[in-house]
């Protein structure tokens, strides 16, 4: 993905190519945060709309990172959007895809608020540091640390139950 991202920072590379390269993982990533695949697709598409408005991104900009941050920020603004458009909250959340794979972890994640899930995803799956997550989400580092600590406290009993 890094190679793809680097190549896609070339202004000559089309936005459509970036779309094809990045949308699948972006949807998956956002689905973990918002808990709904359909909503994640909606958010990913909005992230690409933003990308289109800023295209080409500055050469130093990592496309994947840019998309992840914009997509997550859109997801975290979801609550505000829901107040504006109730239908976003009413789509049926078909979580069978998650319940089939790891229902315990999924239910544990559902107990976390979206910001905490976002921080968890960025650190665990993407290897971002807490400083980087704080920068990306626009919150102090200590806030991120507390989110992650709380997340681990919430999820650890799920893990311990599994191995008991």
């Amino acid at each position, binding site marked *: 993905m890094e190679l793809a991202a680097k190549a896609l920072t070339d202004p000559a590379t089309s936005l459509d190519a970036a779309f094809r390269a990045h949308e699948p993982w972006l949807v998956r990533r956002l689905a973990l945060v918002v808990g709904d695949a359909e909503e994640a*697709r909606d958010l990913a598409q909005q992230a690409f709309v933003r990308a289109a408005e800023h295209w080409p991104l500055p050469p130093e900009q990592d496309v994947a990172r840019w998309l992840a941050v914009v997509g997550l920020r859109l997801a975290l603004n979801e*609550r505000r959007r829901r107040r504006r458009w109730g239908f976003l909250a009413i789509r*049926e959340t078909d979580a069978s895809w998650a319940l089939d794979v790891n229902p315990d*972890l999924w239910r544990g994640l559902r107990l976390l608020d979206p910001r905490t899930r976002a921080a968890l995803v960025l650190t665990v799956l993407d290897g971002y540091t807490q400083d980087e997550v704080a920068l990306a989400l626009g919150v102090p580092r200590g806030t991120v640390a507390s989110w992650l600590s709380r997340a681990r406290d919430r999820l650890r009993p799920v893990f311990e*139950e599994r191995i008991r």
Partner: protein
Amino acid sequence: MTDRFDAWLETGLRDLEAAVPLGDSMVGRLAPTELVRVSGRRTRSLRPVGPLALAIALLILVAAVLVPRFNAAGPAASQSIAPSTGGSTVTPSPLSSAAVPDERTIGLGPFSIVVPSSWHMVTHTVGTTPGPFIFLGNVAIADPCPTKFLGVQCLRPLAELPPDGIVVTFDGSTTTKLPNPTPIPTNEPLGSACAGMAGERELAVLFQGFGVTACLRGPDFAANEAAFNRLVASIPGPPPPAGTRVTVAFTIPESGITLSPPGDAVPATSSDAAYELCLTPGGASCQPSPPTSIQLALITDTSSGLVKPGTLVWAMSWLGVTTCVFSGGGPGLPGSQAPVATPGQPLCDAYTFVDAHSGKFIFGYAGPHH
């Protein structure tokens, strides 16, 4: 232990991530170069027609068949509600007896609304997910996108609102979810679609399942605001069942969840407040129908460890439902009724647990029907 926990967490997240369904629409999804042409504030409307949109469009078409006046002059025609014709399903409901003479009650899928009899109505049949599907107004209006989805302009059923004009837009699917029983219209920032019609004021009501917005132009807002409030107030919602107490302990089969009699425990929140979470976006995961019961109980969950044993909960149950996953929250169909199963369709029992002291949603469970 920490290493094992970290490994379990990362593996679990990666497994979940890999399982996210990308959907058939991924191939046909609009590329960004197409997206940007129609980008705007309401980018939610940009998705191309996918399976869900097709399903909604199909439901709309079914509704159109059931409501002949919708189709009487084609999808782009503006229909006055006033002349009632034989065979129409614009049916008088109990509400109509209370309606003033210049109002009419019309059926919209699972519920009905009251609007001034002079208002016009059109359906939008080329939908996105979940694009606007019904426009109402006190002026002539037409489906802005009768054959092809064209982005934000599909939210404008007329070029320009005349003075004292109003256009009401229903967003979302009324066929799957329920209105909030106590909706209150709020003033909203003027959206681009409304502003594009020369609208000057926008009111919105968010229900579970759809949103209703009114775009108004002055100078006389009062009459149209009153009409919109009347319309909103006419949408019925089902009352929740009364809260009771579990009297005999029982275990939900295959779940590890046991609900025990609460004794003399006194909840800090009411059963109505617990149910209210179902009506609140992001509040609680509920089934799209009224619960079978709301019972006060002490819960023990040996399978997930997500709740402290002995926690006092309001346990909302939906028994024998066909929707075996949770919605993001939402009450049931007006006056109803869990979905009716088709032969061979599995039934589920679903439960939503709300902490009876804190009033917070804990978790939901759905399993085979017993």
